[in-house]
C-alpha cells in the first residue's frame, strides 16, 4: 500500500514484512524465547551500549547487539521478525558482547535466532547463506573455514585493512610463510588430521547439523552426505 496522508503514521515503525501474518512472526518469536538457553542469555538491559562499543560488526554494518537484546526483552514481535530475517547475518559471532555488566549474551541470542531461522527454512535465511555455500562446504568437509584466496576486502570489510594487503600479495605471502596446505595452493584450506575429520563428520550427523543443511540447501546436503558417508564407511 502506498503511503498517503491518510495511512501515514510516523509513530509506528514501518512494517517491512506485511505479507507475513503476525501470528507467524509471534510463533517464531516464541520459539526463540522458549529456547532453554534464553534465560541465561538475556537478563535485563541498561542500554549502556558496551555491547555495541565492542562489536566489530557494528562498525561496518547497520547492526546493534543492544537493539537485538532490547527488542527481545520488549517482546517487540515485529522488530524481532526484522532481526531474524536480516540483522542476524551481520553478526560475526565473536561474542565480544558478553562483557555486558548484566551478563547478557546478545551474540548468544543471535545464535538462537539463527537456529530458529534455519529450522524454519526462512527464505531470507536461504538467500543470506547462499553465498556461504563454499564456506559451509569447506568447514564441514575439510574442517577449516577460510582458504587464503577468500580474503577479499569487498566481502569482509570487518576483517580490517590488512585484508587488502594480504589479498593483493597472496602469492608472495605464501612463499614467505610456507603452510602445510592440502595441495600447496591458495584456494584450499589447511590440512586437518583425518581422525579429527571423521570425528567432525560424526558430530555433524549426530548433532542435527546435517538436517539444518538439508533445510538450507538440498544439493549441498547431497554432496556433503555422499562424501562424508563414504569416508566414514572407510573408517
Amino acid at each position, binding site marked *: 500500500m502506498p503511503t498517503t496522508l491518510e495511512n501515514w503514521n510516523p509513530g509506528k515503525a514501518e512494517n517491512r514484512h506485511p505479507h507475513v501474518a503476525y501470528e507467524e512472526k509471534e510463533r517464531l518469536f516464541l520459539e526463540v524465547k522458549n529456547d532453554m538457553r534464553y534465560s541465561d542469555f538475556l*537478563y*535485563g538491559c541498561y542500554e549502556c551500549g558496551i555491547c555495541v562499543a565492542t562489536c566489530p560488526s557494528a562498525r561496518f554494518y547497520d547492526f546493534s547487539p543492544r537493539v537485538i537484546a532490547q527488542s527481545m526483552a520488549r517482546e517487540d514481535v515485529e*522488530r524481532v521478525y526484522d532481526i531474524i530475517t536480516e540483522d542476524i547475518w551481520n553478526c560475526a559471532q565473536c561474542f565480544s558482547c558478553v562483557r555486558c555488566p548484566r551478563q547478557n549474551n546478545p551474540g548468544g541470542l543471535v545464535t538462537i535466532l539463527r537456529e530458529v531461522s534455519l529450522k524454519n527454512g526462512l527464505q531470507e535465511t536461504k538467500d543470506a547463506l547462499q553465498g556461504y555455500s563454499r564456506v559451509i562446504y569447506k568447514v564441514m568437509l575439510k574442517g577449516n573455514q577460510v582458504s587464503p584466496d577468500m580474503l577479499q576486502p569487498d566481502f569482509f570489510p570487518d576483517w580490517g585493512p590488512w585484508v587488502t594487503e594480504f589479498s593483493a600479495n597472496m602469492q608472495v605471502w605464501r612463499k614467505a610463510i610456507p603452510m602445510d596446505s592440502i595441495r600447496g595452493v591458495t584456494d584450499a584450506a589447511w590440512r586437518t588430521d583425518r581422525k579429527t575429520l571423521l570425528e567432525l563428520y560424526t558430530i555433524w550427523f549426530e548433532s542435527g547439523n546435517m538436517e539444518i543443511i538439508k533445510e538450507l540447501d538440498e544439493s549441498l546436503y547431497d554432496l556433503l552426505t555422499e562424501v562424508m558417508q563414504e569416508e566414514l564407511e572407510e573408517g
Partner: protein
Amino acid sequence: MTSGKVLIIGGGPSGLESARCVAELGGEVVLIEKRERLGGTPDRESYAKLTHHWRDASEAMAEMAESVTGNKKIEVKYSAEVKSISGEAGSFQVQIEAGGIAESIEAGAVIVATGFQHFDPGRATQYYNYYSFPDVITLTDLEKMLKENKVVRPSNGETPKKIAFIQCVGSRDRQIGNEYCSKVCCGIAGKQAIELREQIPDSKVMIFYIDMRMYGYWENEIYWPAQEKYKVNFVKGVISEVLKKGDKLLIRGEDTTMSRPMEVTMDLVVLSVGMEPSAGTRAVAQLMGIQQNKYGFIESGGAGGLDPVATSRPGIFVAGAASGPSDLDDSIAQAGLAAARSLASIRKVMA
C-alpha cells in the same frame, strides 16, 4: 535564659527520629506538629510499602511515633505552629500556637524537620493532562490504591492491563525551575511497578525515563528484579504528551533505543512526581531567618559544605527533606546527626 531543651518542628520521620535521639542522649524535647497526628508525609499520603525491606509504611511510622509518644522526655504538641522566634543559640524564645492557644517556649536549640511536598503535576511543562483525564494519576495516587490492593482505572473501575510510568515529572526541568533530581522517584516507580506486576500478573508495565537513578542497593533490590523477575520494561525517552484515544490514553514519545518516534495506548499513566519544599518548610525558614536555596529548600552544609544539618543560623539545625530531596534512610540518618549536634551546641553555651 539558657535552656537545655531542644525544639523540634515537624512530626514526620526526621522529626520523630530527632526527638527519639535527643531523648536517648539525655536531652529534653518539645516536638510540635501541625497535624493532629504524627507520621508526616508517609502517613498523610498513605504510603504502602517502603523501599527497604518492603515494610508496611503505616506499621513503620506507628513504631517511630510510639517511641516518641511513650517517652517522658518528649512533649508533643499537636495542631501546633511556630509564630516567631528570637534569641540565639542556647537561649531561643519561640512563640507557638497549639490548638489555637498561644504559648511561649524556651529552647536551647531548634531542629527544623518540616519536610517536602509532592510536585503538583498541573505545573508540568509537558502535556500530561493530570487534571483532565482521570486515568492519569501520580505516584501518590497509585500508592493509595496499592495499599488497598485494589488498583483500578479511576475512569471506569476496571483493572488496568497496560500501565506506563513517566519519570522526572517536576524534576530536572529548567522551565519549571526545579533543576534538581528528586532522588526517590526512580526507586518508588520501580517498587510500584513490581507491586503492580504482583497484584495484576497479566499487566504490562513500562517505565519511561531520562536516566534511571537507582543509587546504592536500589539497583539490586529494585531495578534488576523489576526488569529480570517482574519483566517491567524500562524505555529511555520522555513522554511529550498524553492524549485521549477512545477510552484509552495515547502516549507520545521517542523510543530512543530503536531511534524512532513512538505512540502507544495505555490504560493507566502514572506521573512520577518529584519533591518540592513543603509550605511549612518555606514558612518556617522565612520566619526563622534561615537561608533557603533557589528552590526554596533550607540551605545546609555549613561553611565547609560538609555539615549536612547546619543552617545559616547557629543553634538551628535541619534534618530530612526540608533541606532537599531525601529518602527515608538519609532523612533518618540526618535526624540522628541533628540530635547530636543540637545537644552539643547547647552544652557548648552552658560550659
